[in-house]
C-alpha cells in the first residue's frame, strides 16, 4: 500500500496522519461508536474488529475512488453502501472460515461494519473526490486511527476486566478482575474515561502554551 504515490500538489503526510490521531474517527469525531463499545472487551477482539474494519475501509475507498467517474451522483450513496456491504460480507465469511473463534466473539457486529458511519463518511468526504493514491492514504490513516482507538479501549477493558493483556496475565493469578469492564457499562465508562483524560490533556497543553506565550 505504501507504493501508492500521493498527488504532488499537496503533501501526503497530513492526509495520512490526520486520521490517526488529530482527527481520530472514534476519539474525536465519535464515529463508529457501536463497534468501539461493543466488541472491545479484549484486545484481541478489538484488533480483529479494527482489522476487519480497516480492510473494508481500504477496499471500499480503493474501489470508490477508482470508480468515481462511473458512479452517478444521484445514486452514489446506494453504490457506496453496496460496495461496503460486499466487502463486509467478504470479511464476515473470511473470518468465519479462517478464525472461527474470533468470528464467534465478534458476532453480529461484523455485519454492522456496514453502518459504521466512519466508512461511509470517508467515501463521501474523501474517496469520491480524490485520487486513488490519496484515498488509500486517507483510508489507511483513518483505519489505523480506528484500530488505535479500539485497542486503547480494549487494553483498558481487558487489563482491568480480565487482568490480562492479549491473553497474558498482567497482575498474577490472584488478581480480582473488574468484571464490569467487560460488560456494557464498562464500555461506556471506559470511553468516557478516555475522553475525559484526552480533554484534560489537551486542556493542560493549551494552558501550558498560553502560559509560555504569556511569559515570553
Amino acid at each position, binding site marked *: 500500500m505504501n507504493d501508492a504515490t500521493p498527488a504532488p500538489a499537496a503533501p501526503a503526510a497530513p492526509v495520512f496522519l490526520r486520521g490517526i490521531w488529530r482527527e481520530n474517527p472514534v476519539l474525536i469525531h465519535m464515529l463508529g461508536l457501536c463497534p468501539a463499545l461493543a466488541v472491545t472487551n479484549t484486545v484481541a477482539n478489538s484488533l480483529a474488529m479494527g482489522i476487519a474494519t480497516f480492510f473494508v475501509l481500504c477496499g471500499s475507498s480503493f474501489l470508490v475512488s477508482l470508480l468515481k467517474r462511473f458512479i452517478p451522483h444521484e445514486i452514489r450513496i446506494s453504490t457506496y453502501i453496496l460496495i461496503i456491504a460486499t466487502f463486509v460480507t467478504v470479511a464476515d465469511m473470511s473470518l468465519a472460515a479462517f478464525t472461527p473463534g474470533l468470528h464467534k466473539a465478534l458476532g453480529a457486529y461484523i455485519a454492522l461494519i456496514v453502518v459504521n458511519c466512519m466508512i461511509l463518511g470517508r467515501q463521501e468526504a474523501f474517496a469520491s473526490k480524490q485520487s486513488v493514491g490519496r484515498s488509500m492514504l486517507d483510508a489507511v490513516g483513518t483505519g489505523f486511527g480506528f484500530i488505535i482507538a479500539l485497542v486503547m479501549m480494549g487494553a483498558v477493558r481487558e487489563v482491568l476486566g480480565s487482568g490480562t493483556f492479549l491473553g497474558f496475565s498482567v497482575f498474577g493469578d490472584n488478581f*480480582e478482575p473488574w468484571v464490569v469492564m467487560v460488560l456494557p457499562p464498562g464500555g461506556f465508562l471506559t470511553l468516557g474515561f478516555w475522553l475525559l483524560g484526552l480533554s484534560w490533556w489537551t486542556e493542560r497543553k493549551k494552558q501550558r502554551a498560553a502560559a509560555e506565550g504569556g511569559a515570553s
Partner: protein
Amino acid sequence: MSRPPLVVTASPHLAGPDSTPRIMWNVVGSLVPVVAIATYYFGPSALLVVTAATLGAVIPEHFFGKRGSLGDGSAAITGILLGLTLPAGIPLWMAFLGGAFSIAFGKIVFGGLGQNPFNPALLGRAFLQAAFPVALTTWPAREGASWWSLAGDNFALPLMRAAPDAATGATPLGLLKFEGTKTDVGELYLGSIPGSTGETAAIVILLCGAYLAWRRYLNWRVPVGIFATVAVFSGLLYVTDVSDADPLFMLGSGGLVIGAVYMATDMVTSPVTHKGAWIFAIGIGFLVVVIRVWGGLAEGVQYAILLMNALVPFINRATQPKVFGTRREGTAA
C-alpha cells in the same frame, strides 16, 4: 458618633434556619447510630468498611472537587452510605474504590454537589456489584465467631482477590429466591441476619429517618410511598400466590429500609415536587417488587432507585406546579 460599617444585600434580608452544610451534617449525624448498630452486629469489619468507603469518597472530593466542597459534608454522606450497603467481609480496597468511583464518576463529573443525576453511593455500589459480583454477594456468617474477629478478608491486597471465607451465609432474600426458605420476620426487624452492614436493624434506621423527616431534611413522602407500594403490591402477589414473600418480609428484608430512608430521599436525585415524589416512590416500590419477584437478582432496591433517579428529570418536567391563578380557569372572575 462612629457608625458601624453597614452592608447592603438583596432582599430578603433574613435567612431561613436551614443551610446546606447543616442538612448534610445532620444526615451524617443521623447515620452514626446506624454505623454503630452495624458495628455491633458485624464486628470491627463493618466500621472498617464504612471508613474505607468514606475515605474513598472524601479523598477525590478533596483533590478534584470544587474548592472547599468537602465542608458541605455531602461526600462524607456518600461514603458512609456506600459503606453501609456493602457486605462486612469485602476487601477494604474495594470499598475504597467504590467510594472513589461514586464521587468521581457519580458526582464530580457532573459538576459536584447538586448536579448529579444519580445517587452517587448507589452508583458506586452498582459499579462494585457489576465489577466484583462474588465479593459483593458473599455474606459472612457471624454465628459462633467472636465479636473481634474480622468478618471476611478485609485486608486483601489492593486489586487482589479475597481469600475465600469458609463461613458464609445467604441473605433472607437470597434464601427465599434460590432455596425457597423463608427467614423469620422477627429476625428481619431486630437483627442479626447476613446482609450488608446497613441492612440489619430496620428499626434504628427508621428512627433516624423519622428524626430527619421531622427536621424536614428528608421528604417523608418518599419512604412512605415506597413502603406502601411494596406492601400493597407484594401483598397482592402474596395473596394471589404469585410470590411466597409476604409484605412484612418484603419490607424488612434486604436494603429496602436503608434504601427508602436514606438513598431514595437524597434531595439531589429525587423529584422537587410532592406529586413527583409520590410518583418516584411508587415507581421505586414497584420496581423493587418486580425485580425481587421476577428478576434474576435477589435484591433490587439499588437498581430500582437508580432507574427512578434516571427518570427524575422527566418526572420533574411532568409535575410542574400549577401556577397560582391558573388552576380554576373559568370559575374565577
